[in-house]
């Protein structure tokens, strides 16, 4: 299958996503947004970065680019779509997933390693995990605080669409383990289909064993990207 890694001006995790998918033997190519999705697309990654310099609002401009209409169409047809970091911001700005990502509680950019509890293991992105598993991934964002209206959150929870929550090493969902002040400690959510997901942490940075193993990140990201295998 061919996975399209969308590149906007300002995307900067596109090569990393490509390297991670290459490592998993997934056929993936970087696609310039103006060129549109390939016909045989069987997966879409919207990678991290600063599309359009995050001018206006993180993800807002890319969300309104023509290619995102194609991504929505692909998503509706069941193609797995994963938005990572800026890709998550683009996903929520374009309405693929609910809620919004806004300025961290610290009001600063934060690059560090966090723990996540798998909340729904019945998705392509979590199929290798069990519910309540604790995985470790890096974050690197200034605007990753998940916000959502209370009633929408209630719907999200009742529909089991919370994918990951920030937690401590033992899986406890605590305020201290919440790096950015996200509502309900939410790190990743599903769209209307379980094949559409966005998350702020970076699975592609915790996939290559030669880097992730050495720097202590581990390779849990490979489990998330297994959706495209």
């Amino acid at each position, binding site marked *: 299958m061919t996975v399209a890694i969308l590149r906007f*001006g*300002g995307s*900067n*995790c596109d*090569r*990393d996503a490509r*390297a*991670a998918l290459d490592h998993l033997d997934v056929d993936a190519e970087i696609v*310039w947004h*103006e060129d549109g999705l390939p016909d045989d697309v069987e997966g879409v990654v919207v990678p*991290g*970065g*600063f599309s*359009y*310099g*995050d*001018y206006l609002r993180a993800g807002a401009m890319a969300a309104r680019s023509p290619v995102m209409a194609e991504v929505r169409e692909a998503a509706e047809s069941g193609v797995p779509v994963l938005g990572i970091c800026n890709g998550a911001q683009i996903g929520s700005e374009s309405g693929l997933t609910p809620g919004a990502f806004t300025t961290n509680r610290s009001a*600063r*950019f*934060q*690059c*560090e390693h966090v723990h996540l509890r798998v909340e729904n293991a019945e998705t392509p992105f979590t199929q290798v995990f069990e519910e309540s598993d604790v995985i470790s991934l*890096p974050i*690197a964002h*200034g605007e990753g605080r998940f916000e959502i209206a209370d009633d929408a959150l209630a719907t999200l929870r009742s529909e089991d669409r919370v994918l990951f929550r920030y937690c401590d090493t033992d899986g406890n969902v605590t305020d201290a383990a919440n790096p950015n002040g996200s509502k309900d400690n939410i790190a990743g959510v599903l769209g209307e289909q379980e094949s559409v997901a966005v998350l702020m942490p*970076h699975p*592609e*940075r915790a996939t*290559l064993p*030669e*880097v992730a*193993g*050495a*720097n*202590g*990140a581990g390779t849990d990201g490979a489990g998330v990207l297994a959706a495209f295998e």
Partner: protein
Amino acid sequence: MALSDADESRIRAELDRELTDTERHLFENLWSEHCAYRSSRPLLSRFSSEGERVVVGPGDDAAVVALDEETYLTLGVESHNHPSYVDPFDGAATGVGGIVRDTLSMGAYPIALADSLYFGDFDREHARYLFGGVVEGISHYGNCIGVPTVTGSVAFHDGYEGNPLVNVACLGVTNEDRLVTAAAKSVGNKLVLVGNATGRDGLGGASFASEDLGEDAETEDRPAVQVGDPYAEKLLIEANERLIDEDLIRAARDLGAAGLGGASAELVAKGGYGAHIELTNVHQREPKMNALEILLAESQERMCYEVRPEDVDAVREIADRFDLGCSVIGEVTEGNYVCTFEGETVVDAPAEYLADGAPVNDLAQVEPTPQERNLPEPDLDAAFETVVGHPNTASKRWVYRQYDHEVGNRTAKRPGDDAALLAIHEAGRGVAFSAGADPNWTDAAPYEGARAVALENATNLAAVGARPLAAVDCLNGGNPEKPAVYGGFSGVVDGLADMCRALDTPVVGGNVSLYNDSATGPVAPTPTLAVVGSKDGYDAPGTALAGDGTLLLVGESAGALGGSQYLASHGGRDAFPTLPDDPLAVVEAIAAVANHEATTAVHDVSHGGLAAALAEMVTGDAGVDVSLDGDARSDELLFSERPGRAVVETTDPAAAREAVGDAAPVTVLGESDASGRLSLTAGETTVTRDADDIAALRSVIERELA
């Protein structure tokens, strides 16, 4: 600062006519200290810049060294000191932009940044304001362009109160086929400007960087500071990569100091040619700009390329694809460097004379006097808290957490340990990267302190098992017209040059920033050194103890206390500690131990001495009981910052001794355990702290700036 009368009459004689107004300003900037190294050039020949791995040495935008037969690394460093005082956020951000473009112009892809930052005392509100702004500026720009900031240094010292230093180094990857230089190749080729439109920002920045900061600099000099657009820079990175992919570039130079005038004159001068540039062709952001503004504005995110006429359309197409402006501004000629504007010739001078004709200053220097011993007698348990908890020694997590240090999927060792380690997948090799200087050292003893700076950076590389490959320096000093300042500066150049030679590490490029002088006086001579080293593979021990091994000190025991944080905090003077006779052997021995399979932790001994090094190794699960013996005073045993030493934790001390051989003494410090506690005895003093106490001491920056 205007062109001096002496320079003007010299140029008038050379050109045999009066200068045009535009020429006067162009010469003023190109012949400034910042661009022409007028005061430092006589000293820079002391560096050894040659080696079998050096592909491109000093003088281009960045240096190039061969990692192996196929893979090249580019290395460059730049200062953005004065702009960062006037406007810390934009000043620091554009410093990152500049050094990244220096990397692009070699045909390389930028893979890592290192920042060495120097501010006034951490207790001062103004120093904190500058510190916060600079870190945020670097974070904003570096994160956005997707180049990880993986290492660096931060130091606080009262000499920087009126003049902080921001030194940024960048590492890039390229190869023989992709390598581009800044030397124009042939007559008739077009000069093409790609990137942001030219506006009236950053006028006269090179000249501004070449004089002391006035007391009203924050308001007076604001127009000389550029504002960066990291989004445009990211587009430029990708466009440049594509231009190199398609072999469309004959030569390249980024537009930095002295703007278009600087970049284009230097590019053609390096090839031995001239140019004809029509300034009206430059794509502009503001209406009614005059020739001078177009030529000298330091608008950011612009590159000047030499392109074959038949390739111009292809270049334009790529620029369009990335939403970047593109204009053909002129061509390479045999004659003078000529600029025309609205039918008038505004510049007509030999390119080489513009770029390299500035006379060298012959300045008086006074040697610094050696420090007589006069030591304090504080309570050493309290001194431990002071030194380990001093912002210079403490954790810099508050800083590097704001930098994306992992984008690019190369960061095998993150910031916080001695050196960053990057995976160069192209070559299957690890590249270690360390950068910094210590103003306490070079303030106390310019020559010995600078030698120590070089040795300490090399020891950082050794701690992750790498051997030094090459270095670039960023030499910061005060007003060189003051003999004592120039004497100190001369001392750091000698010290750095001598130690790098001893370490068999060519100094392949660098940057000089003088006139870092303000109402609060000159900065300490500050020789930031950025060093790269290489090793097989990407694995290396960290600094954290495993808790089940023997701790060894590899290297000499305590030395004198000159330059130490202990003396900086408690007052007193002392000679600078003596350094090893054969520093390369010591560094290689430490690297050999670091690479041994039984080694579980390595940490170099530097800022804060052995006490700080040991404190930094203790974790909640691992501690150690250390007894330091010797004839030395207890404070020397604890706090001497004699570099060229490392603490090693190993499960096979005999093998470690064998790996070190005769290169350095090896002393057993103690056995690590699961206590999570440091107990440190030196003479009559025993200091005991658990990991939480130490973490609290070390978190001073985070706590104060939360």
